[in-house]
């Protein structure tokens, strides 16, 4: 497959703060997920490849061309920013048509494109309301609409599912996947693994400004699955529960928590652990108050990968 986006030793720092360090990547057409905890450098990476900021070291090209200040190229790019910012006193329709004007389309084309984009994100009925009266989900959908309205070949979404309800998320995920079928190049960033997993298998893991891994999500999943997980169980009889788990080979450690009736179990096979858990509760008649996974988040996974 042809490389669409290429970065070489891309580095960016803000004063003494490192934004991105020595990132060399080749991204092909299709959906690529950029995964990393908050503050990892995902937005910096997306801003660098769309030419919004300039790198301190290294370079970035799209289809072999430098992008920064190469403004003609922006007709091919759609960008959905992370920040929830708008020209608040405009209506949704005015916002969309105003931005499409900057693409030098004719008034009839602008009207048709705006209509289509607003229909896609289901904002047609609210198009004449001022943006400041929009809900968070509507604002997120409007941001999405302005990125896709001009039918770009390369679309960059920075945390596109933030603030959306489950139904809205599913719809946006379906839309993003449909753009892949059209042969477009799509970059989606998120700090939530299942969100990215639902869209693509190709992911780039970024943490503390560095790329930790790039490739098929199964590889990353394997890394994550071998990561020992701690599960906290609050129940009436933690000692009895501990005695049942101590024999299991997938349980590495058991501790009693500082809070009353809390058991902390460390497992290296989370799936097996959770599949057997309900039957053990039933078998030993254990009443459970709460089950939580204190380290079941991306940050914990990254901490584990860093140590590894």
């Amino acid at each position: 497959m042809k490389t669409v986006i290429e970065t070489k030793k891309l580095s960016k720092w803000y004063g003494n703060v490192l934004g991105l360090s020595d990132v060399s990547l080749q991204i092909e057409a299709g959906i690529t997920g950029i995964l990393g905890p908050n503050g990892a450098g995902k937005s910096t990476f997306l801003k660098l490849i769309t030419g919004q900021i300039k790198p301190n070291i290294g370079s970035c090209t799209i289809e072999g061309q430098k992008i920064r200040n190469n403004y003609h190229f922006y007709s091919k790019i759609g960008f959905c920013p992370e920040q929830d910012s708008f020209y608040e006193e405009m209506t949704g329709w005015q916002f969309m048509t105003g931005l499409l004007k900057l693409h030098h389309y004719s008034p009839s084309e602008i009207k048709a494109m705006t209509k289509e984009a607003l229909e896609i994100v289901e904002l047609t009925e609210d198009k004449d309301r001022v943006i400041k009266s929009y809900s968070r989900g509507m604002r997120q959908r409007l941001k999405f609409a302005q990125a896709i309205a001009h039918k770009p070949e390369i679309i960059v979404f920075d945390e596109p599912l933030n603030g959306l309800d489950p139904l809205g998320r599913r719809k946006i995920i379906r839309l993003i996947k449909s753009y892949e079928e059209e042969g477009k190049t799509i970059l989606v960033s998120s700090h939530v693994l299942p969100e990215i997993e639902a869209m693509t298998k190709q992911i780039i893991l970024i943490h503390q400004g560095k790329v930790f891994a790039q490739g098929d999500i199964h590889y990353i999943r394997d890394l994550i699955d071998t990561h020992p997980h701690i599960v906290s169980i609050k129940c009436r009889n933690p000692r009895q529960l501990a005695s049942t788990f101590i024999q299991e080979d997938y349980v590495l450690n058991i501790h009693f928590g500082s809070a009353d009736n809390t058991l902390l179990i460390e497992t290296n096979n989370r799936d097996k652990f959770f599949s057997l858990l309900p039957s053990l509760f039933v078998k030993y008649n254990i009443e459970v108050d709460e089950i939580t996974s204190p380290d079941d988040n991306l940050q914990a996974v990254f901490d584990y990968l860093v140590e590894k």
Partner: protein
Amino acid sequence: MNKITVRRLLFLWNSIRKVYSFFFFMGKKSNKTKIFFIVALLPVIMALIIKLNPIFSGRSSTEGIYIFSNVIIVFYLQALILLLALFFGTSVCSEEVEGKTLTYLTTRPVSKSAIILGKYAAYTSLVILMTGIGVTISFLILNVNKLHDFSLYEILIRDVIVLSLGIMCYTALFTFVGTFLKKSILFGFVFGFGWENVIQYFPGSTQRFSIVHYLKSLLPVPKTGRFSFLMFKLEPSTPVAAVFMLFLITGIFLGLACLFFSLKDYIFED
């Protein structure tokens, strides 16, 4: 000029027009414009008070055109256009950065120079419009008994042109300041109400380092009268030199603003 240069210039011109229409439309609707429009109309209230005062006090009234030429114009020239240019000029860039909306503009097929020039033109037009309306209404109130004297309208037109040149020049300066300074408003106040208001009264060529010197050079110098102090120590440049300097200053600051805006990274604060 070869064909590529002509095509680039045409594209730049078209881009400026698109950015202009976007921000002129948005500017008209913004709350900021509404507030400053009210501020721009304050001299109208002043003109009303001046006009009505002789009726209630029984004193003889001063010539309307005399008051208009001195008080209103100098009030506009030395305070109001500075204030409007400061708030609109600095916001050309800073409101995009502070409002985090810059991304929507810089990821479009328009050059960064077109963004600056288009938005500058939109805001300058709005300020000229606001000021023009205020000046015209003030003129009509102060000269209500002489509206048939068409020679007076020449003064109105001249003054509106001078104020427009001032707005054009100051807005360009503050647009430039807004592209690289975070506290551009503070700088603007120090420059506008400090430097400009002091340096213009320096004798010799020093006063030529202020913009207001060139604006005053385009206005008649009252030798006597209550308001002659406003033109104190003015050693005017020729009208041609004054207009040339105003356009030159505008061009330089807009050029610098485009350069800074194209080169600088704007980082949004959380």
